[in-house]
């Protein structure tokens, strides 16, 4: 009996092996050739991203350490003076930071709770439900500035809301003349403006849930709340994460709505960080200070978004 062992496959010899051979290292030209199509296709987008996002970001960080007034080509390095001013009380951004935080957190909760509730109610076939979904989505296409002016006309002391209250025999409500009420109105208007987008995301997420799972729950006797809590909600985890992060980042940048609805008043009590940066820092020619505020806002938003994503990922992995 002859036993032959399988010969191992013959590997190609390295180029130039043997006496006098030269090791040329990795094949760069081959790498370049293989990377060329990727670079060609991604290049324009990368260039645009760099020019429109990265370069302005680096410039803003640089300007934040100067006293640039936007008019002059000369500027002076002022160290951390702008950042100290950002975190000072009075003329600084401490109060706007608090207002931005309240708006963002309250708005995120309201938008997501209402959107997921509406998604549950509207996740059904039929023309009527399509109409409901369109009606809820419609405010999202109205720009923040228009929304602000529209609601300002409704909520101001001569607006429709006061007329309605008067007609019902109720006293006037200080919608935009009291600081706390004005912040509350901002939360509601922001939510009205933004719920449509979150609704669409939640509806899309719900439609990826296999209907058999929900039917199985029904068969097992689970009521609507149990089906939502034990089946739908866990499977919506990633959609919830996306919604929370997107809404939070958007609300941190609230400016146009504040400008149109309250113009930062009364007495500056609804000024957000973005409002301070644009309507005050920029308007007063304090570009260095405005850039410092922008950097603080960016770092804060990024840190919060990272924290939320990290927390939600842990939650998602504990559910699967």
């Amino acid at each position, binding site marked *: 009996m002859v036993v032959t062992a399988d010969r191992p496959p013959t590997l190609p010899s390295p180029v130039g092996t043997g006496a006098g051979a030269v090791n040329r290292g990795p094949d760069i030209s081959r790498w370049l050739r293989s990377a060329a199509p990727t670079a060609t296709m991604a290049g324009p987008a990368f260039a645009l991203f760099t020019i429109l996002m990265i370069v302005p970001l680096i410039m803003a960080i640089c300007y934040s350490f100067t*006293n640039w*007034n*936007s*008019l*002059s080509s000369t500027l002076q390095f002022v160290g951390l003076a702008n950042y100290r001013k950002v975190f*000072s009380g*009075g*003329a600084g951004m401490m109060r706007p930071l608090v207002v931005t935080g309240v708006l963002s957190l309250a708005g995120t909760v309201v938008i997501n709770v209402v959107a997921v509730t509406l998604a549950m109610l509207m996740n059904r076939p039929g023309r009527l439900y399509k109409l409901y979904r369109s009606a809820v989505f419609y405010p999202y296409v109205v720009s923040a500035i228009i929304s602000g002016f529209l609601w*300002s006309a409704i*909520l*101001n*002391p*001569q607006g429709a809301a006061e007329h309605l209250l008067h007609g019902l025999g109720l006293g*006037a409500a*200080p*919608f*935009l*003349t*009291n*600081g706390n009420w004005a912040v509350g109105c901002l939360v509601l208007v922001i939510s009205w403006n933004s719920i449509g987008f979150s609704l669409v995301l939640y509806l899309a997420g719900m439609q990826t849930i296999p209907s058999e799972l929900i039917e199985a729950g029904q068969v097992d006797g689970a009521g609507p709340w149990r089906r939502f809590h034990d089946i739908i909600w866990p499977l919506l985890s990633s959609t919830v994460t996306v919604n929370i992060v997107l809404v939070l980042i958007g609300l941190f940048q609230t400016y146009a709505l504040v400008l149109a609805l*309250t*113009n*930062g*008043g*009364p*007495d*500056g*009590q609804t000024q957000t960080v973005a409002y301070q940066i644009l309507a*005050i820092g*920029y*308007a*007063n*020619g*304090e*570009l260095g200070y405005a850039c410092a505020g922008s950097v603080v806002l960016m770092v804060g938003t990024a840190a919060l978004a990272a924290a939320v994503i990290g927390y939600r990922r842990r939650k998602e992995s504990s559910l699967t």
Partner: protein
Amino acid sequence: MKRRSTKRLAALAAAGLAGAGLVGCSAPHGTSSTGGNKTGTLIWYVNKTATLTPAVYQKVADGFTRTHPGVKVRIINQGGQGTGPYFQTLISSGNSPDVGTGIAITPQNAKDFVNLAGQAWARQAAAKNPLIRDYEINKGIYSTPAGYQIQDLIFYNKKLFAKAHIAAVPTTYSALTSDMAKLAKLGVTPMADSGSFIAGSQVMAMALSTIYQHNLLWEKDKSAGRVSFAHGPWQQAMQIYRQWIQKGYIDKGAVALQYNTVDNDFLQGKYGMYLVASWFTGNIAQTPPPFPVGVFSVPTLDGKTPAPQAVVAAFNWEIPTAAKHRTLAEEFVHYLSTNQKQAIAPLVKADGDFTQKPLYHLDSVGQAIQKIASQTKVEGVPGGGENVEPNGFATYMDQVVQGLWGGKSAAEVAHELDTWWNSNKGSSS
């Protein structure tokens, strides 16, 4: 050969004519615009309002282009409180207009604007117009105001005054408050007010009409620490203002109203009085109210009359050093500042502004204002030239005065103003 030499001669002749035209055009002239061979599109940044419409500005621009063939004027307009900031944005983004308005020129930022002191026409205009001298920085002429607004005025509804049996206009604050009580009994809100810039400017008018009797350099003294908002005319004015709010003589919801809403409401007879600057005459002319309108000077806190009037330049044309057509811009500003018939008169008439001698027919309200101006000292406004306030003061003033509606005392608001000024002085850029 003959043809080529003809072409060469023609080219030389054209070049010579162009050169002569350039030399001719650059020489200073009197009040009329010069013709010239300069061509190009001049960017003119203006402040658009309800009465200063693009059509008004276009007519002014047409008067210049008629005498400057080959020159076009492109008008960029911006309205409301964003005029100055947007001007800054355009300059910083590399799209500087050639001529614009809205940025307060200070010793810190004067180097970013063209100094016209070298132009004979500018020096002559400054010699005749004290307002131009008020805006000088270290003897440099960086802007040439062509008209002025008077700030410390109260327009009133004569019909309501008669109904309330108010026989004479008040000259003291106690009389003014008493007249407000009479108007309130009629069921109207005595004093019109709104958020945005109206509340802040009303308090400023009430305080400055007293301050100007004694001290025209209050801002300089404030930055040097010699005066303060607390314990003086500012705090007194805010105390009176707060009382008016508490008594309902000023709408408790005014901070949430836009100023143009209140302008229209006054013209519809919803308010008895409106403390606002003379530009309001433009609104009255545009939308004549169904009642006669009168005007009187804001009282002084110590009751002394007549109160000195503060003026603000109505059309303060500036040329950024970043302007692309600087020579053309200087000619255009020369035209805007000195051509009374085609440039100054249409603008001041539309805006309800005034000049040293009236350039348009004044109605009864305009005549009353001109009479007030002639009977009182008319002084330059603070924040002009070297007597500067910190950047953003007017905006902060508008914001912090709203605290009087929210329950803050006059002393608290005065303290906030002092704190803000002290931490921002020296930031006038």
